């Protein structure tokens, strides 16, 4: 078996395609690294500035007392840029890099609306007239280029030998057919891996030499997983190449078939499926969000003004009514925002489920999840934001409870603790990435990819066993 693999390998290493594949992958990986080094420090710098801005914001309001802090909220919360963004761009520009924990809507002479959590959306397209392209990241290199290279290495592995008559020669020896197949597979696999590994090494070398970009142990672990996914994906296309090569008489026909299959599954299926998915999900009625929000507020405030005269100015009763009005309003509005967000997320989930029919989408989703970019990462960020919002609110309640002089009525200045708040005690937002969570979200896709590989591998085996020489 090793003998066959070795022969296959030496055949490939001397070929033109090996040289071309190496040049192509090296060039792409190098560009990727250089571009990452150009862009990433800026992103990290921006994030740092924003985080310190957030902390200053909290400190400024904390020094004004508890009411101010509770009314203003923690302000903008920012998403931490992943240091593995060169692995997958993940359409990050289409998702907002912040959540707004301090969205104010109205104020009257005595009352101010309390902060709510709102989710601004990014619309980079609107003021962008650039031509639309896919960023060259690992996802692109693996998804498109590596799969094409894998096909180019295997299309003639069986049909080519049959054409030249060497297959008959090999099989006349006392070797079982599956050994021949595995040997060929290994040979092709190693010859595809060499240029890819070279590219990855050059890429990582360039990135890790820079002092601006720091890769920690966890990042290396994630890179390892991404590499494993790339290997699995390559196997898929190698198996496909062998399958077609075994079934087809001439190698030219084999390549034509493979290329057409590749174009359909890799190039067109993701976008066509996405169009179908996007259309089928967004066809619901586009109800006017701001109108609903305004209506809710209007109903609440008319209720409030109906009870306006029940308590005289300054009495506890009055403070209670005011407080209930403000907190109820904030609750309602936040729920509305949350509902809209959930509806949008559900739509994207449905659309993503459909696009999973294409292996390239699966692999790009997987790389995104492990690189800490893309949609799943965005959901994690939103989860972090919500956790923090709860924490912040608990802190306000606890601080207020600790003050015996306070009336414990939220929403009104006079109803809350008047003690100064120490800025250090206020919880700060820290966006984190969690590898085990990524694993959970990626598990289905990983299984799906493995399933694809297994099916194709057994297909190639069956086809080769039954082939007539």
């Amino acid at each position, binding site marked *: 078996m090793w003998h066959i693999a070795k022969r296959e390998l030496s055949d490939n290493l001397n070929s*033109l395609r090996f040289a*071309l594949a190496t040049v*192509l992958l090296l060039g*792409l990986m190098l*560009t990727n690294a250089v*571009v990452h080094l*150009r862009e990433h420090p800026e992103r990290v710098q921006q994030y740092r500035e924003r985080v310190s801005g957030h902390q200053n914001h909290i400190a400024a309001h904390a020094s004004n007392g508890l009411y101010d802090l509770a009314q203003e909220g923690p302000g903008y919360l920012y998403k931490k840029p992943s240091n593995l963004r060169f692995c997958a761009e993940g*359409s990050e520009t*289409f*998702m907002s890099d912040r959540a707004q924990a301090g969205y104010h809507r109205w104020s009257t002479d005595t009352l101010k609306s309390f902060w709510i959590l709102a989710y601004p*959306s*990014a*619309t980079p*397209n*609107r*003021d*962008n*007239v*650039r*031509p*639309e*392209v*896919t*960023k*060259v990241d690992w996802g*692109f290199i693996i998804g*498109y280029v590596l799969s*094409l290279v894998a096909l*180019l290495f295997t299309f*003639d592995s069986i049909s*080519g030998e049959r054409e030249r008559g060497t297959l008959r020669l090999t099989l006349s020896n006392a070797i079982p057919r599956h050994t021949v197949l595995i040997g060929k597979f290994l040979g092709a696999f190693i010859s595809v891996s060499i240029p890819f590994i070279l590219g990855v090494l050059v890429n990582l070398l360039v990135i890790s030499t820079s002092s601006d970009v720091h890769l920690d142990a966890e990042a290396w672990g994630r890179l390892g997983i991404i590499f494993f996914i790339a290997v699995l994906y390559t196997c898929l296309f190698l198996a496909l190449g062998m399958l077609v090569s075994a079934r087809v008489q001439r*190698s*030219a026909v084999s*390549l*034509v078939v493979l*290329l*057409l299959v590749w*174009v*359909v599954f890799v*190039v*067109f299926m*993701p*976008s*066509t499926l*996405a*169009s*179908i*998915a*996007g*259309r089928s*999900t*967004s066809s*619901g009625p*586009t109800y006017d969000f701001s109108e609903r929000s305004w209506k809710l507020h209007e109903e609440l405030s008319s209720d409030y003004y109906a009870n306006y005269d029940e308590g005289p100015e300054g009495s506890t009763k009055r403070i209670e009514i005011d407080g209930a009005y403000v907190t109820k309003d904030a609750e309602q509005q936040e729920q509305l925002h949350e509902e809209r967000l959930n509806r*949008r*997320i559900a*739509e*994207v989930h449905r659309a993503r489920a459909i*696009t999973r029919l294409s292996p390239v989408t699966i692999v790009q989703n997987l790389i995104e999840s492990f690189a800490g970019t893309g*949609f799943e990462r965005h959901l994690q960020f939103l989860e972090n934001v919500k956790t923090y919002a709860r924490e912040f609110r608990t802190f306000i309640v606890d601080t207020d409870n600790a003050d015996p002089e306070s009336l414990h009525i939220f929403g009104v200045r006079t109803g809350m603790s008047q003690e100064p708040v120490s800025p250090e005690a206020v919880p700060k937002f820290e966006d984190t990435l969690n590898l085990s969570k990524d694993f959970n979200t990626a598990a289905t896709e990983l299984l799906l990819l493995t399933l694809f590989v297994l099916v194709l591998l057994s297909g190639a085996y069956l086809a080769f066993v039954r082939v007539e020489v």
Partner: protein
Amino acid sequence: MLKTLIGRELLDNLMTFRFAAAVFITLLLVVANTIVLLKDYEQRLTAYNTAVQESREDLREEKTYAGYSGTLVAHRPPNPLSIFNLGLDKQVGNKIEVYHAFVPTIWDAEKHGMDNPFLNLFTSIDIVLVFQGVLSLLALIFAYDGLAGERERGTLRLVLTHPIQRGYILLAKYISAMLCLLVPLLISLLLSIILLTTSTTLALRADDFLRIGGIVLTSLLYVSLFYLIGLCISALTRRTSTALMLCMFVWGVLVLVYPNLILTAVDIVPKPNAQISVHNQIKQMWEQLDKENKQFIRNDGVLSPPSRGGEDLAAGFGLEGVEYTFWQDEDKPSILLYFHQTGLYAGKIKAESEPQVPPVQNYYGFYNRETINTVERTWLVRKPALEAIYVQPANLGRMLLRFSPVGLYDAATEAWAGTDLEGIQDFFGTVQRYRRAVVDYFYDKKIFESRQWFAADKGTADWDALPQFSFHRSDTGINAKRALPDMLLLLTMNVILFTVVLLIFVKSEV
């Protein structure tokens, strides 16, 4: 003789597996995508119609002329040819306010319809994209063994024993292959046009068919270019398998790698911060207006001094019956947009304030005139700055893309479809002219200094007399003019490559 050769080649090509596969794949992809794109277009059209209707109703509800801010809106209809090349049609804003306090541009536009911004995550597709990928691949698959294959089989030597010029052989090969490639192109286009005509909402006009013809012509040039690239490789290599391999790598680089690589490598991200001084300049002009404004009020003896410490210009000038005052401002440094406006709304002005009304009218006449002058001044600096921030990098990107035939093809078909930047700018040019027309109308009818500008008691705003907005896509001639440079480039590349192939073939030993 040429006829015989073409006949032979045609027969050879037509009876192959690759021809069947080519027709099948192109048909499958084009039909599937047309159905999807048609539905998408219909949905966008419905969103457009609803938005137009709603805006019209909103405007009708305004009783005073000053209330037209934010309610007089121009909507951009979806382009039916965006099915062929989507271009910028979907990504750029399609809802734009018409207001005298700023000049509307592509960057001020917002979007109607699109409810879920997350759906931008998914890539979009159009028919040109299908052709771009599939037809180029097919052209190469048809070309790779054109010369190398015949040489391998020895038939080339046989053909050349006849007294035929080598150029004829090449020409015959070229013509027959192009005929074969035309079949999937035309059949799939025909089917997609049939699908489009069955739709009740999408109405293709006569000149749209001319534009589609332009797209077909460009596609032909594009396919022919790839065929010639394949033939060139085929003439240079000895073995068909090497030729095929090389073709695939060339395809991968030209179609897949180069366009993405070059735009990743070259930084074409807009940098609004570079023009921040312009934004400050614009702000200063508005502050200047603010000063003149206060000066005017101070000099006017009749107008009550503005209340709240003399700073708040939006106060109601002591008019009895003012329901609310407003202060409207925009400050977006990234698109250099800055303005502020004040105004008031009076449902019914009380009799004791009646003497106050003419000075207020006079004031608004002055204020609006000065506002418009300020806008004109800011536009002089804002326009070139916006071009520098957004248009220049985008054009650089498009220029770099043109080094690949894919870029040329995309640019030319975009121009034919009218979804390129210039086509979209046509719309915003029309909106700018419309804004001018509205302002002129307001000047003409003295609406800025009329009572109806801020009060609804003696006659309300008459929106029916306002000039109506209408937008027509540019003429086919203009589309053709925009597409021509790229098409000429494609043609030149074709001619050069054909000559190169001919030279190689004439010189080569059989």
